[in-house]
């Protein structure tokens, strides 16, 4: 349905939806951690690593295939997450959040100082191809990227859904509730959290890779804390109860942002802030709680 809608919708909507769904992958990663009571203010680290991995592979190795580039972006960010995960998995609460933030700002600082990578300006990415197919128009390129993003999101949603139903995934609320009991059941909390950090890093990296291809450009702002803040914003908006909510929430956020930016250029932050305020006050468990309620109601109906 979303794929057909993409073919019919005007260009700017396709472009907005591509970015929204790419960012939703980072949000989905935050949801994975949030279920265990962990929040990261530094997912932009992985997002930026994924984006730069795509850009640099194109630049140095000349690879333009979008499938390979996205895969490489994911692998690069997963590796970073696997390494910093050893450190992060030992921290909780605000320390976990701020340490994540610190790591992302180190990357930001490093990129800003790196003249060869364009410093604050970043650099452009060569036009991608899709398994040998090179889109002949800008519109087709945009649509191809949109479909690729949809495919990746679909696979990610399936994967994360399966993870939530696994033993490791179902230990999220128990970790939030009572780590001692989890350990005395025979499971390692540190290892479980390390895996969550890796899943979240992988997802954010793939999101960053897709976003980089869609924008056609990378710059250090992708690692800046406001980027991480945006992901956290959408996570609060979406809530942690549903995988679909991450995608709907991200689409809503991007639409809202561009609408607010168009209608009241000087006041868009106030608009977004108000939306977050209303969400927290009236829908503390996010959009996902509405989806869960609807699903329960439909399954409760006698068939």
């Amino acid at each position, binding site marked *: 349905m979303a794929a057909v809608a993409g073919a019919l919708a005007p260009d700017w909507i396709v472009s907005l939806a591509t970015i929204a769904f790419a960012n939703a992958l980072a949000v989905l990663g935050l949801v994975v951690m949030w279920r265990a009571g962990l929040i990261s203010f530094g997912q932009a680290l992985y997002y930026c690593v994924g984006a730069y991995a795509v850009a640099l592979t194109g630049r140095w190795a000349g690879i333009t295939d979008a499938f390979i580039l996205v895969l490489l972006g994911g692998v690069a960010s997963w590796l970073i997450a696997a390494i910093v995960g050893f450190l992060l998995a030992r921290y909780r609460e605000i320390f976990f959040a701020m340490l994540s933030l610190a790591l992302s700002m180190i990357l930001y600082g490093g990129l800003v100082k790196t003249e060869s990578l364009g410093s604050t300006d970043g650099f452009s990415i060569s036009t991608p191809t899709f398994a040998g197919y090179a889109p002949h128009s800008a519109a087709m390129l945009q649509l191809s990227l949109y479909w690729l993003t949809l495919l990746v999101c679909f696979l990610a949603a399936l994967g994360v859904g399966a993870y939530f139903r696994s033993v490791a995934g179902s230990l999220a609320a128990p970790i939030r509730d*009572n780590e001692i009991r989890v350990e005395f059941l025979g499971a390692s909390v540190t290892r479980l959290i390390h895996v969550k950090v890796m899943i979240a890093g992988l997802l954010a990296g793939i999101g960053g890779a897709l976003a980089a291809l869609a924008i056609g450009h990378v710059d250090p702002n992708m690692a800046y804390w406001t980027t991480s803040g945006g992901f956290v914003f959408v996570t609060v908006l979406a809530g942690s109860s549903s995988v679909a909510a991450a995608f709907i929430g991200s689409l809503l956020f991007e639409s809202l942002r561009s609408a607010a930016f168009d209608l009241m250029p000087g006041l868009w932050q106030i608009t977004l802030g108000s939306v977050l305020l209303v969400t927290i006050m009236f829908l503390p468990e996010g959009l996902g709680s509405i989806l869960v309620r609807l699903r329960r109601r439909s399954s409760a109906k006698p068939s």
Partner: protein
Amino acid sequence: MTDILVAENLEKTFGSLVAARDINVRVPAGQTVGVIGANGAGKTTFINMITGHLRPTRGRILFEGTDITGQPSRAITRLGIARSFQVAQIFPSLTAFENLCVACAVAHAPQGLFGPLLTPVQSPAVIAEAQAAIELFQIARYRDVPASVIPQGVRKLLDIAMAIAGSPRLLLLDEPTSGISIEEKFDLMTVVMSALKTRNITVLFVEHDMEIVERFSDRVLAFYDGTVIADGTPANTLADARVQELISGTKLKHKAAAHA
């Protein structure tokens, strides 16, 4: 009968404070051992050392002949030693049944990095085992109630039911009746002990109520000042002059203080 648990010369010090010393205990498989002693006598330290929560300063612990001294608690759990806590350690945001499902699923999941990732939590075997446990401990009426709102006694039972999800051979109960009213204590212990009997589990339980100790244990260990001062049948241990002076006597004072 073979010894399931052997503690040799166990000692635990925190700086200059000696929490446990010269503990030598052998527990044959199938025995139910009551552990008594005043607060601070070293009972919980003893249990914490066996379950890997604390590392002994000296001495060693053998479980079924294997040296488990200083191993991490989850490794010891995997070997077959489970425990409950003075304050029930459950997952408040899950229902009673979900608590048990999680416990059973973790116990059955293959170990390693990928085992827990690739095993679904809600398998028919897990659901059947959780349902059996909830019935065995007679808390089925609280099955779908969030654990945050179930009564204290039920929490205690749930805690113990979760502890034995992995079919342990040795179970350590740290004050199973603490926080329970006097009228309910006997019923709770009856449910627990009859449930454990069906599973052939060796039990060590810490208890302050001498009537319960006498009624439910085959053997009683009396702790005082970090070490075991009496060890024998309930009748013998409770009749011991030092136990009466230092422990049962102390307990009366505690009761008086609690009522004051």
